[in-house]
């Protein structure tokens, strides 16, 4: 990574503050902000790396964005980075929700607040969809594989299959298909020109190497 010209977090303090900052902006969900800040603003991760980190974090148990924080922090600072990024993500919002719950009794029935929250919720939903579209655009070289994304969306959003059951059913099939595609590519004449076939293979999404 020494030869990597891309920006990296300068210190644990910066890591903490960046994760605090993105968590504090995360009304209705932190994921859109994680993508915006880590990929677009700080450029610590490429879109592909972010997607890969997110995918892995979703496969494993635990809140997705917390898993992303752990993996991103660990990448540069080891376990101290993982702890720092996770604490950064939790500490400031935690203080806010504790204040909120102590005030809640007094404002819970205020119609103004309810209407404001409904509007914010509508926007939050749109931000999640926009993040999904951005990630899909980043992965468009592998558009055939997005079929699995469509299945995941339909299973969860339309058929309301429990998340754990969906992942247990779909992830092995998708990974199995990727292994099969790799093998098939292996038996064909190796690294041929970047044809339609090879663009659907496993190596495609990540071209730059890390040490």
């Amino acid at each position, binding site marked *: 990574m020494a030869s990597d010209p891309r920006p990296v977090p300068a210190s644990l303090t910066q890591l903490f503050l960046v994760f605090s900052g993105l968590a504090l*902006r*995360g*009304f*209705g969900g*932190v994921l859109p902000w994680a993508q915006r800040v880590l990929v677009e603003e700080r450029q610590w991760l490429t879109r592909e790396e972010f*997607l890969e980190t997110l*995918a*892995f974090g*979703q*496969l494993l*148990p635990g*809140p*997705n964005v*917390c*898993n992303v924080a752990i*993996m991103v922090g660990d*990448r540069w600072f080891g376990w101290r980075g*993982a702890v720092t990024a*996770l604490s950064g*993500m*939790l500490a400031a*919002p*935690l203080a806010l*929700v*504790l204040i909120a719950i102590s005030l809640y009794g007094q404002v819970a029935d205020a119609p103004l607040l309810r*209407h*404001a*929250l*409904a*509007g*914010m*919720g*509508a*926007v939050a*939903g*749109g931000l999640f*969809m926009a993040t*999904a*579209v*951005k*990630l*899909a655009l980043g*992965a468009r070289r*592998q558009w055939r594989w997005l079929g*699995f*994304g*469509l299945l*995941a*969306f339909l299973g969860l959003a339309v058929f309301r299959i429990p*998340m754990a059951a969906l*992942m247990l059913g779909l992830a092995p099939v*998708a*990974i199995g*298909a*990727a292994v099969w*595609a790799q093998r098939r590519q292996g038996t064909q004449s190796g690294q041929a020109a970047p044809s339609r076939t090879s663009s659907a*293979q496993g*190596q*495609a*999404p990540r071209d730059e190497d890390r040490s």
Partner: protein
Amino acid sequence: MSVEALIDLLLHFASLSLLAIGGALGLAPEMRRYLVDEQQLMSGTAFTEAIVIAQAAPGPNILFVTLLGWQAGGAWGALATTVGLLLPSSLLTWWGARFKRQREDAPWVAAVRTGLSPIAIGLTAAAGWVVSAGNNGSDGRLWALGGAALLIVLRSRINMLWLILAGALAGILLEAG
């Protein structure tokens, strides 16, 4: 809360941790059964309140677990539920990430990447859909608001906080009109 009750709380949430695939909100029914029905540590209303507040406030939704602990047993309760729920899954993630990184060039890592990345996109879209459906219901104006936010984010580099603020104002104006 007694120390025994705190340890019980910690262990119960730790036992749920590894079941929280894709987030902990799916475990809310089980948490409710334990906290409200079985241990009677809080009322059903207090339970719902914790979820509503954590959803409305900025930050990871997982903070509803912290609030549940707070409702059940103050600061120590909050610590017990949060550490219990996060520690096992976080250790697994940390270990899993290292395991994968040390084998970055292995074919199976490439296969996992290829297979899981599209699913991650689908799950993000589904999260957007579920948030929208739960929030917007059958109110076409709220759906239009969400759609507008989606288009604006894709077509500009606007600070998304402005959109959230505009959403709050629009929500108030829509109801006032």
